[in-house]
């Protein structure tokens, strides 16, 4: 049995893989997970995995644990192997889709990653570094301004209201201005989704491929997937567990070569 953990900026994701298939997935809000189950022992971060209630006692005897996620550079994790996010996500996408040649777009809480995979191997990648306005956190804050749920936000893609701010914070006041102009909420939601697509398109254009795989929590936004398909002119493949893709990648990486 192999345990994969993806320590994201918004959620900590778990995947348990046995005999080549995913047998369990789970996630926790990052902060509450660290507060409840994280502890520093001799400068190493340890997690009280038994305390999470996710595992049977025998599953935690000599477990194989692989971890990825933000902050892994500043902390070391006891009893775990640490790998980079890119490697984890590519492994997860290969495992989930069975593809060997594809472009992976991973849209997480803060991260935007685009990776080109050729013949099963990572050929090149780009990541956002100076700005996180193309991430899930942007969708969350816009949903708050619009007073809609993320489910509601992700159901609108038609007739988007153009939103042009580069900055995610100025984007809020721009959105308020558009609300005052009387645009319907549905079109504003579509505008928010459209903005995110526009921000990631230049990164995607660098690595054209007939297979575009979308992962990360943002892949659950169906309106965004639709807009992405419209603007790239190609189908977007969202694997079964997009949000847990990195954790799954950690759990399977030993058995597949990336």
């Amino acid at each position, binding site marked *: 049995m192999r345990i994969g953990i993806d320590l994201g900026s918004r959620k900590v994701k778990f995947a348990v893989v046995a005999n080549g298939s995913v047998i369990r997935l789970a996630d926790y809000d990052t902060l509450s997970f660290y507060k409840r189950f994280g502890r520093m022992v001799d400068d190493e971060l340890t997690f009280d995995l038994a305390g999470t209630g996710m595992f049977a006692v025998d599953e935690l005897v000599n477990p194989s644990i692989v971890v990825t996620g*933000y*902050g*892994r*550079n*500043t902390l070391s994790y006891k009893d775990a192997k640490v790998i*980079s*996010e*890119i*490697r984890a996500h590519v492994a997860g996408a290969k495992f989930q889709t069975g593809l060997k040649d594809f472009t992976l777009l991973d849209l997480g809480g803060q991260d935007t990653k685009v990776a080109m995979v050729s013949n099963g*191997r*990572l*050929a*090149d*990648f780009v*990541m956002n*570094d*100076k700005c996180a306005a193309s991430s899930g956190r942007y969708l969350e804050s816009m949903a708050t301004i619009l007073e809609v749920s993320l489910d509601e936000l992700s159901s609108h893609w038609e007739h988007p209201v153009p939103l042009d701010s580069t900055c995610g914070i100025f984007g809020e006041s721009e959105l308020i201005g558009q609300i005052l102009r009387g645009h319907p909420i549905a079109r504003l939601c579509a505008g928010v989704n459209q903005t995110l697509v526009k921000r990631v398109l230049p990164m995607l254009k660098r690595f054209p491929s007939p297979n575009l795989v979308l992962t990360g929590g943002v892949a659950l936004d169906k309106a965004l997937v639709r807009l992405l398909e419209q603007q790239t002119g190609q189908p977007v493949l969202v694997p079964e567990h997009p949000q847990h893709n990195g954790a799954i990648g950690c759990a399977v990486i030993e058995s597949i070569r*990336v």
Partner: protein
Amino acid sequence: MNRVGFTTTIPIEILLAAGRMPVDLNNLFITSGRSRQLIEMAELEGFPRNICGWIKGIYAATLESGIKEIIAVTEGDCSNTRALMEVLSLRGITAIPFAFPGDRNPESLRLEIEKLMEHFGVGWDAVNRSRERLDRIRRKVWEIDRLTWQENLVTGEENHYYQVATSDMNSDPDGFESGIDTFLEKVHTRKPFRDTLRLAYIGVPPIIEGFYPFLESRGARVVFNETQRQFSMPYGITDLVEQYRAYTYPYDIFTRLADITVELEKRGVDAVIHYVQSFCFRQIEDMVVRQTLSLPVMTLEGDKPAPLDARTGIRIESFLEMVGDRL
């Protein structure tokens, strides 16, 4: 005051011939130990946040140093330098313009050099004598570079330091030379590095701290620092005008890439890190770099002086992993 500052590499042979002390304002800023505060000072005076950190750093470092005369390179580096000259002149600093002609025309360059010579009241004999003096030091620095890539005895940071310092010879050619001599003696007693990856660093010198040691802690060593090497004038040319025509940095990206391509091959480089400064026109040239070079290229962007941040660390690690897997 005897000191003359400059905004990027200029023919320091002229300053030395005139008995003036050359000060590369970039070096003054970045080695001040207060580089972050200097940027804040410039921003408090009104420099926009979205302007190159080097320009702001040079501005504040010049004022703080008490240097009264600077040579501002208005062509061949960035156009922000023109405005920098203007604001510094408001503070009583004399700025002498110097232009590297965009077409590398020898006559235009000769005219620029002779204008500078006239300003400082020196003739060709004196300038050529100081070139010979400087070339003796430069040859020792070329040797440090050779020991970096051919003998694997020098770290990426040491290679960076000795080459970048040749722009002003640390404002003390004799002291700089004796430091080099000591280093060369010491370095021969080392055991060669056994790196897993050999990297090239291209672009302007990094504003971020801890970059080279971070790479080396992950088994990757920089064996080619492009711009820093250019500062050391590694051509063996005895004509001053031709020397500053061979110097690639102030000219177009294709001139630079011709040099880069030769060195990547010669030094057995596995991958390239292209450093670009935030808000710099050279970020556009990154497109040409990526299309021209056949090796994996990672573009790294730096804004202000700061230790390497976690996100950049993650990107570098992933890049090294990827390159390592390919070999």
